[in-house]
């Protein structure tokens, strides 16, 4: 019962933790961008595309949203090599996270696109805008604004979910934690420190997204 906490060993490995933190940041930011791209393309396909394309996107979205991320990760990292497709842990992590976030983004963005009143699109058509122009100038901006909070919180959840890639030994923040743990046996201290780091990251991302909202949507442009 007399346990003395020692954070010294944990902080002594700070360079190591920093390396992990950087990969976690890279994974998060890159996945957010690719997830947004997949989300935009997929939601446009799901709302405006032809029937067969809608069906394909729907299957993708439901398959991903109804299975756990860790299983998707294992399937890509451990499963695909037996079909002759091999990735290193980091690449597999990028792919799995992007596929995962993409599916959630499609659903969120779809809700935004469908919330744009039909009359807005008709107004665009009556001005002689092409389909792509209507999407670019009439639909996308207000749609993004509507679903921005949902998308931002999904992105923060994704940042936390990147910790799962430690299970295929991608060297992210969480994985460095388990290595420090196995070296120092300071289990509790390591995980508390790492949990604090994630908390700080989540806070920074939330502030950043709030700032980004101000920057993009709060100007005179509506």
């Amino acid at each position, binding site marked *: 019962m007399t346990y003395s906490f020692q954070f010294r060993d944990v902080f002594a490995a700070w360079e190591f933790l920093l390396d992990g933190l950087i990969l976690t940041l890279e994974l998060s930011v890159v996945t957010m961008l690719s997830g947004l791209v997949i989300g935009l393309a997929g939601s446009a396909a799901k709302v405006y595309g032809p029937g067969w394309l809608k069906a394909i996107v729907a299957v993708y979205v439901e398959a991903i949203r109804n299975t*756990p991320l860790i299983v998707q990760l*294992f399937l890509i990292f451990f499963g695909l090599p037996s079909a002759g497709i091999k990735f290193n842990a980091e690449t597999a992590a990028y792919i799995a996270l992007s596929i995962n976030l993409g599916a959630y983004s499609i659903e969120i963005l779809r809700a935004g696109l469908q919330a744009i009143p039909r009359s807005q699109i008709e107004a665009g058509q009556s001005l002689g805008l092409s389909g792509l122009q209507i999407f670019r100038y009439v639909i996308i901006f207000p749609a993004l604004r509507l679903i921005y909070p949902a998308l931002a919180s999904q992105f923060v959840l994704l940042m936390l979910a990147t910790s799962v890639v430690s299970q295929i030994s991608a060297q992210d923040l969480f994985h460095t934690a388990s290595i420090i743990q196995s070296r120092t046996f300071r289990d509790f201290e390591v995980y508390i420190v790492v949990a604090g780091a994630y908390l700080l990251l989540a806070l920074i991302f939330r502030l950043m997204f709030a700032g980004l909202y101000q920057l993009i949507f709060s100007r005179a442009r509506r």
Partner: protein
Amino acid sequence: MIREFTFTDVLYLIAAMRWTLALTAIAFLGGGIVGLTVALLRVSTFAPLRWLGALYVHAVQGTPLLAWLFVFFFGLSIVGIEVSPWIAAAAAYSIYAGAFLGEIWRGCLQAIPRTQWEAGASLGLGFAAQLRYIIVPQATRLAIPPTVGFLVQLIKNTSLAAVIGFIELTREGQLTTATTFRPFSVYITVAVLYFLLCFPLTQWSRRLERSLHVAR
């Protein structure tokens, strides 16, 4: 020894689903109790209680579930408590689910117009009685679709308990892979089994949501 991945293995995987479901049930029960407390704290009329609720939600929603699992599994042993994966998982998932359910339910409580509270107050009901007889019955109807939706998240996230050696569907998949060396077939099967659990719930949640909109 390397075996083939046979139908028997599939049956074992199906059998392992019961631990996924059991963990989901425990997490939902524990998370429900914590969540109800959090939701009530968040709508309290006493500001420090609201702050406490908000602090809890932000702390839990800002840290990975994996960290909670590890803290409980490895961490509690240092205070002399020998922790089985069951206890660690139950504790971690209750904390995790409590934060999310608390936020969902707070939203439902707050969606009930202020005037409903005031109507209760004008009838001479106290805070607890207003909550019990006027707010909660209306909020429950709103709460069901998102709660079912969160249940899907919970089922999927029980897969993370595999990393502390809790034997459920994903862990069983790992064990089967280790003996059969058929990762692709095994994990596809595991994914299909999760899908069969989650998809009906997702559809149900969607239907509930739609009928709620019609009713309003």
